[in-house]
Every structure is written in C-alpha cells, then in structure tokens.
C-alpha cells in the first residue's frame, strides 16, 4: 500500500467516523449553524482570491469556484 493510498484511507476513515457520529439537530437548536460565518461555501468577498489562485496555480476546483472558461488569466 502506497503512502498516498494510506493518507486517502486515513482521510476517508476520519470522514466516515464524523458522519457516523451525527446527531439530529432540531430547528430551534440551529442558531449557531445558521450564523452567517458558518456557511459551507465561499463568501462573496473571496471572489478575486479564488480567481487568482486558479490562474496562478495548476490546481483548481472542489471549492465551488469556477473550474474553466472565461480566461482573465494573464
């Protein structure tokens, strides 16, 4: 088993453990989850950062940002 495969298995194991420990949260208990800072996504103010990171680095995607098209990449 390669080092890379071991890392991915470890990450998968941690994720599955977290998912398995889920508890049901009632609507009235979601005040923290509904806080604006808890959004599972990029905030609008990060738009330019995501754009230059995708042009200045070879890697892109899996972050909700644009994955192709519309260059602006000089």
């Amino acid at each position, binding site marked *: 088993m390669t080092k890379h495969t071991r890392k*991915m298995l470890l*990450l998968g194991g941690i*994720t599955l453990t*977290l*998912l398995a*420990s*889920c*508890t*049901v*949260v009632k609507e009235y*208990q*979601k005040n*923290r*989850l509904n*806080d*604006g*800072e*808890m*959004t*599972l*996504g990029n*905030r*609008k*103010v*990060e*738009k*330019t*950062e995501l*754009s*230059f*990171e995708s*042009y*200045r*680095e*070879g*890697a*892109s*995607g*899996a*972050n*909700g940002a644009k*994955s*192709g*098209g*519309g*260059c*602006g*990449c*000089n």
Partner: protein
Amino acid sequence: MKKINLAILAMFAGILYANAQAPADTGTYKNRKLQLEEVNIVSSYYHQDGDHAAVTGGIGSQRLTDLSNSIQVTLSKYDVHDRKHTWNLELGIDHYTSASSDNIDPKTISSASSADTRFYPSVSWEMENKNGRTLGAGVSFSHEFDYQSVGANLLFAQKTRNKMGEFSLKLQTYQDNLKLVYPIELRTNSNGGSGEGEDYATAGRKTYSGTVSWSQIVNSRFQLMLLMDVIYQSGYLGLPFHRVYFNDNSVHVEKLPDSRLKIPLGIRANYFLGDKIVLRGYYRYYHDNWQINAHTVSLETSVKLSPFYSLTPFYRYNHQQGTKYFAAYQAHSSADEYYTSNYDLSTFDSHFFGAGIRIIPPHGVFGMQHFNMLELRYGHYNQSNGLQANSISLNLKFK
C-alpha cells in the same frame, strides 16, 4: 311540483358533494410578488510581481495589476405550489495592466496587449420545493480582447428527510474561443495577426465538469461538506503568447496536450467554538493527467468581537508538484513533444495569509437601514518561486 322539489334537492346535494370533494384550504399559500432579496457589490484590487513571466519564456517581470468590480442582484418569488424561485443576475468588469503581456510585442512602447478589460454577465435560476429538492440552471458569458467564453450549468440538490444532509449535483460547460495572438517574432501570414490589420486566427477550448457534493450537520456546532469535481478540457489548452526558449536558443510557442482531466477532492468543516469563535477549515487534494498533484489546506477563524462585528484572520497553504511538461528558460530541448515555461504549472509552495473585518449593525451600516453588511479583506500571497501578490476586497450588501 314534487319533481321540481326533488330536482332542487338533487342540485343542492350535488353542490354539497362537490364542495365536500374540494381540497381543504390550508391557508398556507400567499400570493407573493417578485421581490428583491439582496444586492451585493464586490470590488477588488490585486497586484502581483515576480521574475518568471511566461510571455518571455520564464524570465522577466510578472508585474500585473487587476481591478475588478461586480454587482449581483438576487430576486425571489413563491409560486402557487409554494416553491421558492430565486434568480441571480450578475455583471462583472475586470481591468488589468500587465508588464509581461506588453512583451508580446516588445517593439512597441506600450502595446494594446498591455491592458485589457473583461466583461462577464451571468444569470441563474433556482427553484426549491417544500421537500428540500432544488433544481437550477444558469448561463454565463465572458468577453475580453483575445478570449470569449459561453457557459451553461444545471443543478440538482436534495435534502434528506430530517434536513440534516444535502446531496448536490452540478453539471457545467464552457465553450471558449481564443484569438491566437502569437509573440511578434513568431507571427506569419498563415497564423494571422502579422500586421496592423490584426486578423488573428482562432482556436476553441471546451470544458465539461461535474461537481458532486454532500453536506452534513454533525451536531449543533459542527457541519461539514465533501466535494468532488471531475473536469475534462479539450482543445487549445495553452496560451499562444507564451514563449518557450529551447537549449539551442531557438524560440517557440508553448505547446501542451489538447486534453486534460482534472480530479479535485475537497472537504470543508466549520465548527462553532464557544460563543464567539467560528473555525472554517478546508482541505483539497488535486490530481490531473498532466501529472500535477497538489495539496491545499486553509483555516479561517472568525472572532466575534460583538454580535455585529467579526475579525477573520486566515491562512492558506498549497503545495504543488508541477507538470512534467514544464522546464525553465532554455531547459527544453527539441526532443520534447510538449513544452512550457509557465511557472503556474511548475513545482512550488504557496502561502496566503491576511485578515478581514465584517460589520453587520442591527440598524444598518452608517445607520442606513438597507445597507446590511460591509466586509473588507486583505491578503498577501507568495510562492516559493518568488511571485508576490497582494489583494484587497470589499463586499457591500444591501437588503
């Protein structure tokens, strides 16, 4: 007379029967008109400098300044089935000046390519029903002097019955067209743009991507999201004004394969620590068939100075194993099938750190009721190959 009475009774009974079969009026539906939900204005200033410009074959100034502005309007409406329809209309304009692009034609004091403006409108629609199912679609367009892009996307999302998890699938395509603006010394009559007429040849680039995500509430303080993209690109994937100098001192235009498959996997995890701190973590593993491998990790901490003010320091680290097609200035040989000296595709580490401040006063920013939120964010970015950049962004939200 008896017959008439019976007929009236029958009609009355019929009306009662018909009413008994009508669905009960639950009173939940309210006829709502299209309403403005929010308007976001985002402005950014970005400046970079370095010594590895791809236009000059991996040497020379990478100095670039970009000013971008966008406005996004969100409208919503409930239909007769109590489904929420949301429309997002966005218009963005970027303007950049670039020292390296100016060297596409270094004989000029300052060529047309030293600056450009990108214009990119987009429209999207989403419909969410009471069962937590969302359908959506969108189109986008982007135009700059040498590049045009048309995009379209479809979205499907479904929440679990207990609203603790959500599955999402997004399909996107971009159909791009670029002008082949070659370096001045490599222009011929056959590849266009050889003179003042600027009748450039063109090439296409197609992108297809599928994004699958699963978001999950773990407990009342913790939620996470798993993301996977599969992105396939085909067509002209280099840029025609990127020079490559071989070890025999000859100059060529960057040449890269005409297809690329990218597979990034990501995980986000947000945790509300105590009553005043939110931790936002992110990790991504990336692999593509140009043999680029990358690991990206970031952590942002939102510290609530009060219920209406937050300070958000952040740090992002990225390690990238570069493509096998990359080599530095005068390091490629004529035996290479593909070649580039674009340092964006090389091996490097990058660090990005900074902080933001977010203000959401209860009676509006500066006492203006509809001026709902102001967020200002600064970041410094550096790569181990010497590239340095700074960005500052401002988001104003009106509701």
